């Protein structure tokens, strides 16, 4: 008797669970769709193919940075240095390809490699020097990389990149920007990495309970170093797209880009306390920001006011999340 009742209960729970799971998974997506609907009503151009591809192109840099940012945030950390690393990476590439005339492929590797190297240093600072929080190591790196980017070219921009370098940021496959295709591929890879590999699961474990992760035999330091290296690497990659887009490298590139990346990750449902967040959510978070900026541009709203509106959206999105969690947890 008791057993039967128990099973019935489980069924009921399952039903309720799926509704909730659906909301949990697609809550931010519903927000995105609503946002698109409103913008489509307010402005006829919004849904044109041209504009949609525009959004895809405009969002790709932040999309690459945000997916890099997701990793440190999953481990209850942060990476403030991605904007500066982007600048340093593209300046290094500029010097190598334009000033020194190196092969453009070598240039691409230098760009991504510089990013990865800076990220690796972030990881080493955090784990080997035992700096108390990545806020500190990456704040330091943020200034160091920016300073270096300015120093190595005496603050001058570099233009005139060969096509091979510009390809990622400026080409189209039919109507679809190549940079957006790159984003999709990277996101699929990150999704597989986080959900289907042991290291991916360790990232969640470290963010969820670092002591338990350590005692479970996870090499916490190594995973953290990898996390920051990947985050830096994504900055380098985003830099490539930026150079292609504007056909120049300038030392103040990427200023404040970390803020939009953090915003995308958080709007996408990741928790600052670590252990919670998905690639899918980050995608939606990135798109919400991109759509919002695009729509506000179409409506000729000034960038100052845009800032204010995006600030409100960040707070509102996280607040909705808090409400949802409170409803499911506290009771």
């Amino acid at each position, binding site marked *: 008797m008791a057993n039967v009742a128990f099973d019935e209960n489980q069924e009921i729970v399952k039903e*309720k669970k799926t509704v*909730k799971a659906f909301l949990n998974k697609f809550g931010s997506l519903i927000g995105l769709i609503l946002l698109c609907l409103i913008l489509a009503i307010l402005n006829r151009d919004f849904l044109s193919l041209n504009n949609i591809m525009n959004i895809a192109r405009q969002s790709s840099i932040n999309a690459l940075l945000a997916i890099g940012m997701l990793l440190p945030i999953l481990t209850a950390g942060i990476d403030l240095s991605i904007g500066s690393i982007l600048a340093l990476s593209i300046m290094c590439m500029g010097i190598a390809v334009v000033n020194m005339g190196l092969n453009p492929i070598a240039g691409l590797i230098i760009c991504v490699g510089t990013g990865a190297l800076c990220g690796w240093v972030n990881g080493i600072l955090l784990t080997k020097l035992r700096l108390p929080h990545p806020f500190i190591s990456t704040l330091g790196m943020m200034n160091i990389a920016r300073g270096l980017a300015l120093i190595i070219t005496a603050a001058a921009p570099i233009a005139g990149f060969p096509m091979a370098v510009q390809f990622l940021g400026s080409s189209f496959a039919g109507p679809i920007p190549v940079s957006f295709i790159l984003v999709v591929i990277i996101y699929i890879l990150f999704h597989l990495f986080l959900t289907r590999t042991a290291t991916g699961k360790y990232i969640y474990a470290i963010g969820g309970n670092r002591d338990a992760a*350590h005692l*479970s*035999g996870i090499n916490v330091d190594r995973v953290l170093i990898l996390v920051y290296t990947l985050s830096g690497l994504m900055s380098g990659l985003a830099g490539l797209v930026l150079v292609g887009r504007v056909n120049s490298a300038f030392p103040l590139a990427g200023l404040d880009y970390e803020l939009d990346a953090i915003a995308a990750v958080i709007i996408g449902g990741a928790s600052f306390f670590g252990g919670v967040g998905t690639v899918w959510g980050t995608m939606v978070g990135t798109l919400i920001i991109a759509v919002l900026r695009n729509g506000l541009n179409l409506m000729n709203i000034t960038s100052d006011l845009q800032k204010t509106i995006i600030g409100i959206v960040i707070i509102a999105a996280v607040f909705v999340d808090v409400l949802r969690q409170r409803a499911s947890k506290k009771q």
Partner: protein
Amino acid sequence: MSIQALLELRNISKSFSGNKVIKNISFSVLPGEVHVLLGENGAGKSTLIKMMTGAYTIDEGEMYWNSKPVKFSGPADAMEYGIATVYQELNLIPELTVCENIFLGRELKKGARLLDRTKMRERAKNYLKRLGQNIDPDKKISELGVGQQQLVEIAKAFTVDAKLIIMDEPTASLSETETEQLLQTVDELIRQGISIVYISHKINELMEIGDRITILRDGAKVDTLDVKETSQDELIELMVGRALDEKYPKRPSLSMKQEGLRIENLKLKNSQSIISFSAYQGEILGISGLVGAGRTEMARAIFGADEKNSGDVYVFGKKVNIKKPKDAIAAGFAFITEDRKGEGLFLDQSLAFNINIASMKNYKKGMMLSNRELLQSAGAYIKALRVNPQRKEEHARNLSGGNQQKIVIAKWLATKAKIFIFDEPTRGIDVGAKVEVYRLINQLVQEGAVVMIISSELPELMGMCDRILVMNEGTITADLKKEEANQEIIMKAATGGK
């Protein structure tokens, strides 16, 4: 009954996301009685008391305090009425001192603002002395073992001017001596007219101090009995739904007696003496001692959990160099830690994640993990340990304490290690599920693993182990065969022969 109840619940129900976990329970506490709550893991004991303390809201039903209806909007509210609570899970702040933790939120003041540190320190000392403890109030919580932390948690209850003290498994991490002391304190409180609601899975303890016992099963009340008119067997049957044939399942004795683990010259921090011993295949080695004797510290040192490990460790005759847990796991160790919330669980992850996290490597197919195999193995352990609820995707946070403990055990069983160190493995696990855990441990031994059990429960050690080491102040004071061991000898060695 003619005596007026101090606290009475009438037809209380509570659901979590559509799942009814408390079903129409009525329950009363009389002035000056010890009312015991008994039930399997997940029966709803902790949920029920959290409604009495204002930590959870009540979905349906009413609550009366001295016959007047009350509604608590939070724990502070319940404290105002004189309800103090010792929760099942520790709620201490590791970086604050013992004294600061005890008075957290109820600091004593000099004048309007200034803290009265001297008075708080004095009182804290007093509270701890009542529990037979000599803990320095200025020590940080993080410097204490789990047992001592539990005592600090209990001491917190004394800061409330209580008429009712609720204790949810207060003795789960205490050894015999501390438990005895606590039971005496409870007696004293009762004589002062204070009522107690008491939860524990240690049935002989309940028989000793309880006046009435209410048994819960699957969220519903089975019965309320007078302790004098019942027996242990009857209680177990009411709670589990069937009789238990054996508390400590037997295992056939094995011929293999190869030395699996040898420790030489291990020195613990703050201890002058060294530790050397061996553990063999086919036997279970028990480690006994008082809270703070260095049992956990020794296990952590062997496992490489803390920075340095001074001694030599040999695994099946081969010397191994262990600097961190990863090395220990590679050498074949599994260490089931005593602090499940702090060091064992990933609370916001699924049961499957928690069970598999230490053995991920075994499920690799090329670079990817096989999700199907991961879920299969998780399902198998959930079934074997009778974890309730059985949903693999449930978050660990939503499990009852005992079921969380089972998940921690499952995580390490899944590693297929050769040497298992269990630190208080059955803490908070109900009598029925304990037998399942013992069966699994026996199976490990059968399969040739080396098993060590650190336990504060002497009956558990004497029931399960072939040999018992006794520790005192960071060293081994006795090495007893099962036949030689009895409570008296062990206690003597545990207190250093005093």
